[in-house]
């Protein structure tokens, strides 16, 4: 990749950042079109694996962008470029949205007594709960499983009830899920 390629790479991530309402996953289709279909900086498999790894790893899912940057750089020529790709992609996707959030947060904090600001927060609260349900359901039925589907649904429902009703540490629940999955029960 030339300097101009890197500049274009960076510029595209800056743009996706500002468009990523609802999280970076919402711009993943656009990333795929650009990085895989148009520029051939990544293979389709590398893209899919990058998303899968970031979802399996702890931390915000946005980190799939770092993996994409790393892989694109690696394709372009080794570890130095991979490190560059990781930094450029991560800074690009985080910078605009973070700056905007900072400025908005300061504004909202200063004007938290305004009727419109309070109305906004009160109005959005039930929508946030609805979106949490939507995302939970979307993840629950995300893949096709070899084990019977009811077993996985039962695991999901059990985890939901335990989180809701107990203060059991979340890592225990994930560990149980990993064990059940590894042993082929779900």
């Amino acid at each position: 990749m030339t300097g101009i390629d890197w500049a274009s790479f960076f510029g595209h991530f800056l743009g996706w950042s500002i468009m990523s309402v609802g999280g970076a996953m919402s711009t993943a289709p656009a990333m795929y079109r650009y990085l895989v279909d148009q520029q051939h900086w990544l293979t389709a498999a590398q893209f899919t694996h990058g998303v899968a790894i970031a979802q399996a790893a702890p931390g915000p899912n946005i980190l799939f962008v770092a993996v994409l940057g790393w892989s694109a750089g690696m394709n372009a020529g080794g570890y130095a470029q991979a490190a560059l790709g990781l930094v450029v992609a991560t800074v690009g996707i985080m910078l605009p949205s973070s700056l905007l959030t900072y400025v908005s947060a300061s504004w909202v904090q200063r004007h938290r007594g305004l009727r419109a600001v309070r109305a906004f927060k009160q109005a959005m609260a039930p929508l946030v709960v609805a979106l949490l349900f939507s995302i939970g359901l979307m993840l629950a039925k995300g893949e096709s499983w070899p084990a019977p589907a009811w077993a996985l649904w039962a695991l999901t429902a059990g985890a939901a009830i335990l989180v809701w009703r107990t203060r059991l540490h979340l890592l225990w629940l994930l560990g149980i899920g990993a064990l059940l999955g590894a042993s082929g029960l779900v």
Partner: protein
Amino acid sequence: MADSPPLVAPRSPSDIFWSFAVLALQGFGGVAAVAQREIVERRRWMSREEFLEEWAVAQVLPGPNIVNLSIMIGQRHFGVRGAVAALGGMLLLPLAVVLAMTLLYATVQDHPVARGALRGMGAVAAGLILGTALKMIVALQGNVMGRAACAIVALAGFLGFTVLGLPLIVVLGVVGAVAMAWAYRALGASPPPAQGATAPQVPGKPSP
């Protein structure tokens, strides 16, 4: 709710950095569930109601909700330093882990045990988010729109996003706008509370 222990403020930017690093490192398959646990239940930086309101603001801004939320918390307590500490805590250590997993991935990607473990964790991660959603319903009790209106707004959002498959921005724009008009009217009708008293404020909160 009867069980409302006093809220506390984060002590320093470094407290913010490490708290968010610990939070992020526990967040497999998304961070929403563990964020609610750590910020509201364990560290008590916010009430459940405040968490929901701040999450709403984080949601409509571009960028990952949880990272936006962490920046907002950092900003509120320690300004730029707090926001940078929050962002760094959220991203740096998890980034190292993701990178290590990327390097390891090639060696385990076809192993059935590893795939099975990831599958099981995925199902649990979905349950964690659903359980968090169930838990947050309580925080809607004091909502100015009233229970019935809250239920209608939530149902409309769920139908639009999940059943009709509308883009998030459309759901937030349409349902959100109607709900906002309703809430605005309701706030005018109810006696005016003190400045920003929709939720308990953190005592002794420094405002830089």
